[in-house]
């Protein structure tokens, strides 16, 4: 059964002016969470937020029953959520969605932009467990957008690009020199972030002829498959991102990236 629970905020940690970690104390035992899954959070302290908002799990501390989310403030919901205080509660529905496919072996590249880094701590943990090598490639506008690098470096190398060149290589993630490595050392790419970025990464995977999984952030009304609002066009027709995704192998999507 899916859960609907009131959780107590134990901590809100601002990482820069726009992003924060939201840490929740969960009343019951936390089920196994697969990397890429998400929760629908109700934002009850805002006069103009009506629907829940979806957020990927950044991390879960099963022992201490804590869930952590990485949230970027982009509008009213994410703003009001960040204004809550420790001790106040938020209601969440979880776990939702499918998850990244974790291979048995290989060496993978994980590309994250903006709030699109959230699912990759759980993914890193899972890959590490299986002994799969990984490299993170994080992109942002400026150096201050590049967050949680110390966390990611526990699981693999961390490469960086920034549009203004203030950290790492200058440019978009797909401009990074790692894509010029020959032979290309990776057997798979995972990506999450703004759609143009994911499409660019998917195009790379096509060129390199390796599989690519992306986590989509479509607008959702429900998050658990009843409204059919969150669809994406796929080779099998319109599918719900919230139940058939959010993770899709790009070869299922009609992005026409390999043309």
């Amino acid at each position, binding site marked *: 059964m899916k859960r609907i629970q009131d959780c107590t905020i134990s901590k809100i940690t601002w990482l820069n002016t726009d992003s924060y970690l939201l840490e929740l104390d969960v009343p019951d035992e936390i089920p196994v969470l697969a990397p890429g899954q998400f929760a629908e959070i109700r934002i009850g302290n805002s006069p*103009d937020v*009506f629907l829940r908002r979806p957020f990927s799990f950044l991390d879960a501390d099963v022992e201490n029953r804590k869930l952590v989310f990485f949230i970027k403030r982009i509008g009213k919901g994410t703003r009001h959520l960040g204004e809550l205080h420790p001790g106040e509660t938020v209601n969440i529905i979880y776990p939702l969605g499918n998850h990244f496919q974790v291979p048995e072996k290989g060496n993978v590249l994980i590309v994250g932009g903006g709030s699109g880094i959230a699912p990759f701590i759980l993914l890193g943990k899972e890959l590490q467990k299986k002994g799969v090598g990984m490299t993170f490639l994080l992109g942002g506008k400026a150096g201050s957008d590049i967050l949680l690098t110390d966390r990611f470096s526990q699981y693999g190398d961390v490469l960086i690009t920034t549009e203004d060149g203030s950290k790492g290589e200058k440019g978009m993630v797909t401009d990074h020199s790692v894509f010029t490595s020959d032979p290309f050392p990776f057997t798979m790419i995972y990506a999450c972030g703004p759609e143009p970025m994911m499409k660019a990464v998917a195009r790379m995977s096509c060129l390199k002829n390796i599989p690519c999984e992306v986590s989509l952030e479509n*607008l959702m*009304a*429900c998050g658990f*498959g009843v*409204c*059919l609002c969150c669809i994406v066009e796929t080779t099998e027709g319109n599918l719900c991102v919230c139940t058939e995704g959010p993770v899709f192998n790009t070869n299922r999507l009609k992005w026409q990236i390999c043309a």
Partner: protein
Amino acid sequence: MADLRVTIGQMELRNPVTTASGTCGFGEELAEFFDPGRIGGIFVKGLTLKPREGNPYPRMAETASGMLNSVGLQNKGIDYFTEHIYPRIKDFDTHIIANVNGSTIEDYVDLSEKLNRLEKIPAIELNISCPNVREGGMAFGISCPSASAVTRAVREVWDRTLIVKLSPNVTDIRDIALAVEEAGADAFSLINTLLGMAVDAEKRRPVLATITGGLSGPAIKPIALRMVWQVAQVSRLPIIGIGGIMNATDAIEFMLAGASAIQVGTAIFIDPLAPVKIAEGIGEYLVRHGCSKVSEIIGALRVD
């Protein structure tokens, strides 16, 4: 514990709470949150004769205390439903009601005939009020002759309970209700969504791919309540009240205004447990108000 049973046509519901078409899938997703046996019925996602991909993305926009959708009746068609979905849901311990959509009167009739073969569908809800497509189309629901014609045609092939879902996008819903009643409907459900629009000022574009969509949620509750009240004043057919019902108080307001049962729609997105909480809340209200049967509050609004 008060008696919560209500009757809609030939159906007896264990309690007046049902879930609205298009907001509860085929009931299976909700069964992950609660036992469907705790509510009166499930109005499944709109069905059409042929499979439909629905409208392009984006299909939804949040609005003040509500949302717009332009899903456009995405579904795999009646044959897929019959073969794959119906077998999985038919034994839910509640009423499964099919939401029937067509772009011609024959579509409605054909679909109803196909549903006739499914024993565990005690009722159909004719959707003549979807603002997002021609199929299930509002075109039928906004004029008396067409609303009447489609109802009459389906009535001829469908003996079980026939519910007609009315569109709020009309000058006087009483006229449509009376036409539909006269054509043989057993009950009304109202309201479907109101035609609305959202604009992204920064992008200077409509938010929805279809420009306009259907408005639902608490924003429309006052309009829905008014229409239920208006229809209850002119017709004695049972009414299923719909529109922005979020909690038991909202549901009771609809029942006082004249609804025999209610549908919970958009509220499910925010709280999938809303239907069971509402059923419980109605029970508590009845006890608190010294009523032994839920029927005591139907249409019991005092207006002297």
